[in-house]
């Protein structure tokens, strides 16, 4: 008689922990720069939310001496020097490279298969037919070309005066590896400890995701990934990093940079009100929200998520409309915090002045030289 052999499922590997992601962001609304200790200690405090399969930081105000130039951080997987040669030939043809170096790393920190990570400060070198194209557009196209055409090479950071540092490991290990606390200062720090939901843990797949000076860190799972991705492909964004969050970074770039929509509107595209809520609105709002839902249906982000989106002058926290992932905001003086857990904010800022949790779908917008983040307090708990 045939007896079905019992195979142990991958789902029950004993050490596999089903954790969540940990997110943390801190911004100084006066633009004063500070080191990484708050971000690193806060994410360390939420270690149980991570899995050691990915961690990363985005830092704004990072390269003041090169702030006129796009800082490209490029990783070469498998120590593929041929990819590096190809990328550098491409860069030479399309950009003026004013300076380049290997990103300094700490040799005492052992991580899983680290790639070669290099940074280039570049300015666009436009041919005559490219003159009409804005710089940002020019750079996005070239970044997309490199990510889709050169095997083993990934541009994972491409903004001015901003840098992403990420990899496979716990975020504090990544911080040690790139020596973030010793070498860098910035006015916004966002950080992520990652549990890869459906995706392999690899260096390019860690958060934050970046395009130009936009970065996104994300907790949750975007189940509308397929729809979002196809829509973005119509706008020349190609997803190459094998993970769902990438669509959010490109969607933010499309809506906020290219189409110049404010985040208050963008948040209602990602997390729109339910139809029965729209039904009860006044005529103006009803028209607006109906139009948004009709126009941008393919950019509705379905599934549970909390994101912290950042660019130079803003840091934004947003959850899905029924808040299936947590977020807490906090403030003390010029510092504003966004985090998955309140305790991690308290741990790095014991004299916090206020903490609040907005309802699902309502953004907390932290702006330079403004108190806009307090607008979300009214509806919060």
């Amino acid at each position, binding site marked *: 008689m045939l007896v079905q052999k019992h195979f142990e499922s991958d789902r029950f*590997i004993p*050490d596999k922990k089903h954790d969540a992601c940990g997110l943390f962001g801190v911004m100084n609304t006066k633009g004063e720069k500070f080191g990484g200790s708050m971000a690193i200690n806060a994410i360390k405090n939420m270690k149980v939310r991570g899995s050691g399969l990915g961690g990363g930081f985005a830092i704004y105000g990072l390269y003041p001496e090169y702030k006129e130039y796009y800082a490209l951080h490029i990783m070469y997987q498998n120590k593929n020097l041929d990819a590096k040669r190809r990328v550098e030939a491409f860069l030479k043809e399309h950009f003026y490279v004013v300076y380049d170096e290997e990103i300094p790393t700490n040799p005492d920190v052992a991580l899983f298969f680290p790639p070669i990570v290099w940074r280039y400060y570049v300015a666009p070198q436009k041919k005559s037919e490219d003159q009409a194209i804005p710089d940002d557009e020019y750079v996005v196209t070239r970044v997309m070309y490199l990510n889709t055409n050169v095997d083993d090479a990934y541009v994972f950071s491409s903004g001015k005066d901003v840098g992403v540092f990420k990899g496979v490991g716990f975020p504090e290990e990544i911080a040690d590896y790139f020596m973030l606390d010793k070498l860098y200062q910035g006015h916004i720090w966002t950080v992520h400890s990652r549990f890869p939901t459906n995706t392999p*843990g690899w260096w390019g797949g860690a958060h934050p995701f970046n395009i130009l000076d936009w970065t996104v860190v994300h907790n949750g799972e975007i189940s509308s990934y397929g729809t979002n991705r196809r829509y973005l492909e119509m706008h020349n964004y190609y997803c190459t990093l094998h993970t769902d969050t990438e669509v959010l970074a490109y969607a933010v770039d499309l809506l906020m940079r290219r189409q110049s929509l404010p985040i208050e509107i963008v948040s209602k595209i990602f997390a729109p009100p339910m139809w029965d809520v729209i039904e009860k609105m006044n005529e103006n709002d009803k028209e607006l929200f109906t139009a948004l839902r009709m126009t941008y249906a393919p950019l509705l982000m379905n599934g549970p998520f909390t994101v912290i989106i950042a660019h130079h002058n803003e840091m934004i926290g947003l959850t899905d409309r029924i*808040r299936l992932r*947590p977020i807490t905001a906090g403030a003390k003086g010029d510092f504003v915090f966004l985090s998955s*857990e*309140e*305790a991690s904010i308290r741990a790095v800022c014991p004299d916090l002045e206020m903490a609040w949790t907005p309802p699902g779908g309502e953004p907390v917008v932290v702006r330079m030289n403004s108190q806009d983040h307090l607008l979300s307090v009214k509806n919060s708990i």
Partner: protein
Amino acid sequence: MNGMNVKFGYRDNFLGDIRPVDELIAQNTVIDGSKAVINANTLKHKEVNDVLREVVLRGASEITLNNVYGQRYIGTRLVLPRGHKPVKITINKFPGNDLGMFLKGHQIIVNGNAQDGVGNTMDDGEIIVYGRAGDVVAMSMRDGKVFVRDNVGYRAAIHMKQYKNKLPVLVVGGTAQDFLGEYMAGGIVMLLGLNLKAGEPHRANYIGTGMHGGVIYLRGTVEQHQLGKEVGVRELDDADRKIVSTYVKQYCEYFGGNAEEILKGSFIKLLPVSLRPYGKIYAY
């Protein structure tokens, strides 16, 4: 590269490097007769619960946990030998998720805000939060009481249940966010709305969505569209008033306030209209 698994990278991220409990007792704990003070600074969540259990077995019944920043599951696993009396645990200040998970008869007092999952599947006892609490408070709770002075987040009392003499109670002084009492199967939820202005409706929408047991008492204003399709609104009868008065008085004992004044407010009672709201969808 610590703790690599066959599947690379699945690492034991918080149970590694757990220090022996004797070492922690010596370093972080002061036991004085029935009182014990634990310094939770740098302790991992498993270590906190190890130490907690050890001090209780050594005779402490009033325990203070200081410097708590986000340690999870505090009070779980504290199932004591037969005949052992429940203990009182005071937490300063910010416990992590799933505070008092599976709690068996003890009293936990939080002098600060609590996070998500307070009283998750709690079995018996009491949790008193001098602050606010996050999402899924009293999730699947089956007995005992949770008192929260301020607001609670999404999905409070989700799938709370009751059985024979097991009757869980959640009392919230402020308001709640959406999906209060979602899939609720039993127990009592009381939302007092003390921090709302006169006439200001509660924050929660979809109250009692999927509810099929238990009761929600709401003080203050709520619009019809805020209620889920599975609940009906009723007036309070004498038995209800007695229940409400009992818990409001207890709330005021802990947090202050005038029980008489609070009880003068307008209350409604929300009951499920069906014991099997999805019976027609899933049963065939």
